[in-house]
């Protein structure tokens, strides 16, 4: 008997939840005032709900189908799994997207799919959904489309005209890991597809000679995801791979997804609690690399390739490099202020702007929203020197998290 729409929605969203990306930000601005249609994007994304797993729900994240000819060990939809299978028609996805959008549940659609028949067939079906949304229904909300490696260039080209973002998951940080757990995936093919997309995005960004207008092509850029904890790769390996992907293909984001047990899991993989803290630390390290001027080696070398789970990587770096502290907030350069644990990019900008007018005291920093408990040991301010605080042997314990009762699983 054919499953109802509701039953299939349950299956195909369950199948999609292991993709961490849910961003709806960073695309062009557009609205429906002139067209009188439906949908807008305003730069910043909006999270319309949060699930108890702490993840934001911004997009209708579903698969067109969870049938798949691939057999990737970590994936709930691999061909050897006994999960229930289902498929949507393109029209059903269009209907769900528009009705959900009208009720303000979502910012748009994140459509992915298992590989059925051929890459071209699968990509073609997905492109049909977004083409209908944009051209038949005039939908101006956000669309994130998974691109299928090895799909025909024309299909990717067309997808890029309608989608705000395209993504392609590398899934594992090393080629060897991919070979072991995702035998049908070709890491070189994934890299080539990412490279092609970067070239297309850059080409579209060049103003044409005649009109000086830039072509609209994937304005939200491309992203990818890596699973953390399925294979044995350490944090340094993961972060180096990310750095390479950011540098090589202009990715907007690399998402890290703690490997979490899936129904009917493969015997090849650990059935443990997902390493959520590790995932969190990787995101922090990723931020330090992209926005704080840290090198990957700096962050990971002090701790032997793995990030410290008990403290954030910036604090760990500061404790390992105490000679660089205390930092004088009234004189230090931006680069060094950014390295003070507890100070973010906004705080640093506010400090640089405020100190032009007067010398800053600890109270001033508190008003800028800085947590004095975190920064006190590492800075000098007007009327404040940390004395021997930075030299204390037990400095680490001042920042340690409270012990927690572990659960049995």
């Amino acid at each position: 008997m054919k499953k109802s729409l509701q039953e299939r929605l349950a299956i195909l969203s369950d199948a999609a939840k292991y993709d961490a990306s849910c961003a709806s930000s960073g695309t062009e601005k557009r609205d429906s005032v002139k067209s009188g249609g439906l949908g807008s994007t305003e730069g910043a994304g909006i999270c319309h709900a949060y699930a108890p797993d702490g993840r934001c729900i911004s997009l209708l994240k579903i698969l067109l189908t969870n049938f798949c000819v691939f057999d990737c060990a970590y994936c709930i939809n691999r061909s050897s799994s006994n999960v229930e299978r289902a498929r949507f028609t393109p029209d059903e996805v269009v209907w769900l997207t528009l009705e959900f959008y009208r009720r303000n549940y979502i910012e748009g659609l994140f459509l992915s799919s298992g590989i059925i028949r051929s890459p071209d067939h699968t990509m073609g079906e997905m492109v049909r959904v977004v083409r209908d949304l944009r051209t038949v229904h005039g939908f101006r909300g956000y669309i994130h489309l998974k691109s299928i490696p090895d799909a025909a260039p024309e299909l990717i080209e067309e997808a890029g005209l309608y989608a705000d973002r395209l993504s392609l998951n590398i899934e594992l940080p090393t080629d060897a890991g991919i070979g072991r757990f995702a035998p049908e995936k070709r890491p070189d093919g994934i890299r080539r597809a990412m490279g092609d997309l970067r070239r297309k995005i850059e080409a579209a960004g060049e103003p044409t000679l005649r009109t000086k207008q830039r072509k609209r092509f994937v304005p939200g850029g491309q992203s990818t995801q890596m699973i953390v904890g399925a294979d044995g790769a350490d944090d340094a390996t993961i972060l180096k791979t990310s750095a390479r992907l950011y540098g090589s293909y202009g990715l907007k984001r690399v998402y890290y997804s703690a490997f979490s047990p899936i129904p009917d899991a493969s015997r090849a993989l650990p059935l443990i609690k997902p390493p959520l803290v590790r995932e969190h630390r990787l995101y922090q390290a990723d931020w330090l690399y992209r926005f704080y001027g840290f090198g990957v080696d700096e962050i990971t070398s002090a701790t032997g390739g793995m990030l410290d789970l008990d403290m954030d990587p910036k604090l760990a770096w500061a404790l390992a490099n105490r000679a660089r502290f205390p930092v004088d907030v009234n004189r230090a350069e931006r680069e060094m202020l950014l390295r003070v644990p507890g100070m973010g990019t906004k705080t640093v900008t506010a400090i640089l702007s405020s100190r032009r007018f007067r010398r800053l005291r600890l109270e001033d920093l508190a008003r800028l929203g800085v947590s004095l408990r975190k920064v006190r040991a590492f800075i000098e301010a007007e009327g404040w020197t940390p004395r021997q605080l930075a030299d204390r042997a037990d400095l680490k314990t001042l920042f340690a998290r409270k012990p927690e009762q572990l659960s049995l699983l």
Partner: protein
Amino acid sequence: MHTIPLLGRGDFSEWRDAARALAAAGISPREVDWRVNGSEELFEVAAPELPAPSATAPPLTVPPAFLPLAEAVVCHTEPGRFHLLYRLLWRLQSDKRLLELSADKDVAWARILAKNIHRDSHKMTAFVRFKEIPGEVEGRRRFFAWFEPSHFIVARTAPFFRRRFADMDWIIATPKGTASWDGESLIFDTRPGDNPGHGDPTDDLWRTYYASIFNPARLKLKAMQAEMPKKYWRHLPEADLIPELIANAEANVRAMAERAASDPPLFHYRLRENAPALPQIVPAGADTIDGLREEARRCQRCPLHCTATQTVFGEGPPDARIMMVGEQPGDQEDLAGRPFVGPAGKVFDAVLKEADIARNTLYLTNAVKHFKYEPRGKRRIHQKPDRNEIEHCRWWLAKEVELVKPKLIVALGATAVFALSGERKPLSQLRGKPITMQGDVVLYPTIHPSFLLRLPDEAERKRQHTLFIEDMQMVRHLSEMMAA
């Protein structure tokens, strides 16, 4: 003391008008008693009695950043907001750069209030849930939403919904005012609205989605509640599922863990049987350039293949008389899969043109076929291939030479010279001196075109550019001589 009663429901102009008059009359913040009279019942306040402007007061000016700040702060429910704004306005008259001083007490407080407003407004865009009212009117569908904001933000947030939901009629009712849109005008009413408690069958689908997208293996309740505070839950159709999802999470995960992997379904075996065999790796020893190129695509002789995008093999006529060998592909070559297409390639093309050599008569390749680099932020910094990598890749280069059989090989840069001849002397000693190699092939060493890009001194760059052109002219000359 001047008592100024205001309605205080987010209307910026009432505060602005009063503040302007007070400041123009030279009345200091200490002499003003701002009152908020806009309680839920009372919607009329007597117009405040404002003083006459003083003739001596200088004209009122504020920096551009003050306006958006004040417009936001006015919407706050904080009773002291009008006083704070007037104090800022007053201080700004003598200290124009006050707002840049983020650490100032008044500035910091105003910023916090404004931040609350932006957050409240953002949460409204996130958590309003429209319910469809059955029956279209003049071909337009109708929707209603009930929302409870913390501050007086409905008027400032309503345009967002207009920009987004242009093709449907909607009403957003809140205790702090009601906004509505009918396709033509956006109307705002400051009076508290009513909640008739509409339902919508589509909510069930949304609840199904919410429950299914949740991953029970990763409970992070704090993260959820920080972003979706409980005060909003009452009017979110999905929120009453939360306690049950949490309660069953651990049991669900445990069950998942205990259910050992079952045997694969039948179609898995069918797929395995029908799967096309992976393309066979062509045995080494392909005897055409195209065959060699195909083989090199899967080269794993050194670890560079893991970090580069693809093998960048040589290209050009398979019987070219001249072969040019560079160092390794760069960023653009790595993405395009073709040699000499990046910035150095552009320089090279220009030089070839000046030397009157047609690029399409040359066989162009590199000593190392994969790009070696170090990521630095959004860019890739070129790294010299080491001896080991060159040695591994020499296998391909030797094959290319063997198949193309050029009469003349131009080595562009020291790496190419080393790869082709094993010679490690500095390039300055070798440049422009042809070396005769096995089989009467002539090797002509010169610089790599990227050398020209790296020279900081303009005059030196011009000189080297000219020298490079002369080298290429020499290459053409040599080639013509050898043909004759």
